[in-house]
């Protein structure tokens, strides 16, 4: 674990519409690690997720985000994605008229073209994944997430239930194979069965080639996905970091325990 972390956030300050939301946040995530970032509403968790992915309206006022040792601050979201970063959205938007399959094939081909441009892939530019290969890949990953095959032909997130949307997010992650994935409140709005399916999907994908940052308000999902590290965020900073036991402590004591400033240790 001594190599350069895939994702390194250093003293990050972010303003949203002129108001400072992240106030000097630091965090490192390596491949093979599962981190949970917890915190009360309004602590800046989703702002962090969206900033990491490159949401244009969030302004980094100081600090640094390094991905595989390189700053991503000047990169657009699509470049960050192709470099190997992924975010599962808390509220995935609908793209009417664009089927899940068509969307995924386009996204996958965008990656392949880059690989080729870098000379690391064998695929000629503009040739894309062969349809047969893509269908097989899609079928395999959908089966993994217990998704009905008909979802592939539906319009992306259009009319999807909460559970379907979250599952579709994990499906995208499975197909795009990022090195670091941020799951922004992936557990919110899910009933227990859907939560289990999503968690199983995440578990099936984690391994030495994937690092995961799970952002959550509740520790519920952590009953299914076991984090190596738990961080608690309050008011734009990480207040405390620890092992899995920290999540359980939060569950029984609540976030007020941190706000009152007791037992605060700096990470």
């Amino acid at each position: 674990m001594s190599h350069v972390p895939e994702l390194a956030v250093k003293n990050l300050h972010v303003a949203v519409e002129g108001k400072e939301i992240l106030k000097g946040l630091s965090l490192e995530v390596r491949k093979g690690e599962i981190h949970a970032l917890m915190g009360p509403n309004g602590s800046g968790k989703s702002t962090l997720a969206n900033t990491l992915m490159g949401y244009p309206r969030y302004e980094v006022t100081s600090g640094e985000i390094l991905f595989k040792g390189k700053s991503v601050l000047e990169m657009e979201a699509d470049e960050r994605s192709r470099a190997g970063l992924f975010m599962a959205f808390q509220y995935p938007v609908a793209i009417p008229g664009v089927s899940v399959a068509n969307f995924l094939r386009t996204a996958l081909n965008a990656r392949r073209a880059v690989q080729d441009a870098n000379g690391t892939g064998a695929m000629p530019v503009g040739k894309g994944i062969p349809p047969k290969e893509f269908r097989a890949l899609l079928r395999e990953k959908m089966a993994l997430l217990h998704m009905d095959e008909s979802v592939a032909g539906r319009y992306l997130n259009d009319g999807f239930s909460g559970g379907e949307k979250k599952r579709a997010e994990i499906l995208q992650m499975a197909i795009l194979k990022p090195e670091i994935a941020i799951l922004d409140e992936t557990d919110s709005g899910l009933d227990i069965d859907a939560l289990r399916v999503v968690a199983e999907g995440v578990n099936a994908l984690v391994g030495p080639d994937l690092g995961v940052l799970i952002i959550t308000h509740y520790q519920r999902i952590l009953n299914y996905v076991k984090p190596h590290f738990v961080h608690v965020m309050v008011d734009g900073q990480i207040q405390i970091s620890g092992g899995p036991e920290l999540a359980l402590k939060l569950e029984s004591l609540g976030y007020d325990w941190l706000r009152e400033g007791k037992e605060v240790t700096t990470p």
Partner: protein
Amino acid sequence: MTTTPSLDIRERYQEKYGFHDSDQYVFRSRRGLDAEIVSQISEMKGEPAWMRDYRLKALEIFERKPLPTWGGNVADIDFQNIYYYVKPTSEEAKSWDDVPADMKRTFDKLGIPEAEQKFLSGVGAQYDSEVVYHKIKESLEKQGVIFLSCDQGLKEHEELFRQYFGTVIPSTDNKFAALNSAVWSGGSFIYVPKGVHVDVPLQAYFRINTKDMGQFERTLIIVDEGAWVHYVEGCTAPIYASDSLHSAVVEIIVKPGARCRYTTIQNWSNNVYNLVTKRAVAYRDATMEWVDGNLGSKLTMKYPSVYMMEPGAKAEILSIAFAGRGQHQDAGGKVVHAAPHTSSKIVSKSISKDGGRAGYRGPVKVVKGAHDCKSTVNCDALILDEASRSDTYPDMEIEENKVTIGHEATVSKIGDEQLFYLQSRGINKDEAAAMIVSGFIEPIVKELPMEYAVEMNRLIQLQMEGSVG
């Protein structure tokens, strides 16, 4: 460094859509319009006297009628600076082998032979004013289906032709219908006998290829009782500096129990005035569907319409308009419920960008006594930037109480959230925007034959390149 493969459509645009082969004409009328030219056109075609007289009368009507003051600006059209008739070869080609080599090159560039192999049963390809290539598969001929150029239709089936010609759109309908009636040339004549289902789309490609040449094709389709046909026309045009005029008339008669679908993809170059009158009459339990895509032209004014004459008639109009820089697309559809128990559905999608202007104009009329009618109108506009414009002119004229009428209109912009979402999956901004636009028109594109759907999406991608910054 990290870019997605470039869409090479733009680079090849001139080659694919902007080319023109050398002009080789057997006959060309002089510029301008008068009785002498109209008589000359009729004589060149060897038409019967009644058609010559019909043309001359239409010319009088054209001269009398004022230009429309609504819709788009047509005041700049110089009617005396246009060639109204150009005959490219002396003979109409009977088979592909007869088509002259340079025209074949044009068709090659358009992908016609390839498309034919896969899809076509018969190609009516209009090269300038005259159909030079026209082929019908033997099976269609055996079924008694007539698929000819309109000129040939008049020659070979005069009685049938005369019975229906001008009955749906008389010369007096509007100024441009009158113009077409006076100088029409080319277009298709189709007759589908009772009960015959033509299960492959009949297609015609045509293009404008002579500087300042007007294109005034005339199409007449008769679908007899219980018959079925799908006609597809697609147009591309080379780019010229001075303004061109395209003014077509399409008349369709859908007899009881019959069904007709008419699909158009219009991609005229951006100096063409595209002023077209399209109308169908549908009788008892007949269905008429217009699928109309408008991408090109300087100004398009086109409102395919359906008159439902007897109970059970159905109308469906799907239209897409894309208005880019310097373009005005005034499109939509019109339905007239002239009998009880008739139903209609209009779906219109428009996209405007770079200062383009897209308008929806959709009169719905229910005449007195046409009770238990149903009509739904949905028009959605997508505006891509502040400089662009979208207008909706719904127009309901309902003279009967017992009817169900629905009208919905939405105007939207491409959302930052949608762009960010797609970008977060590695898709670059231009491609993401194109994807959102393609999705927007998908409900209509999916109704197109596959090759047209592919072409439509590629054209949209081309139009969208570099559009978001």
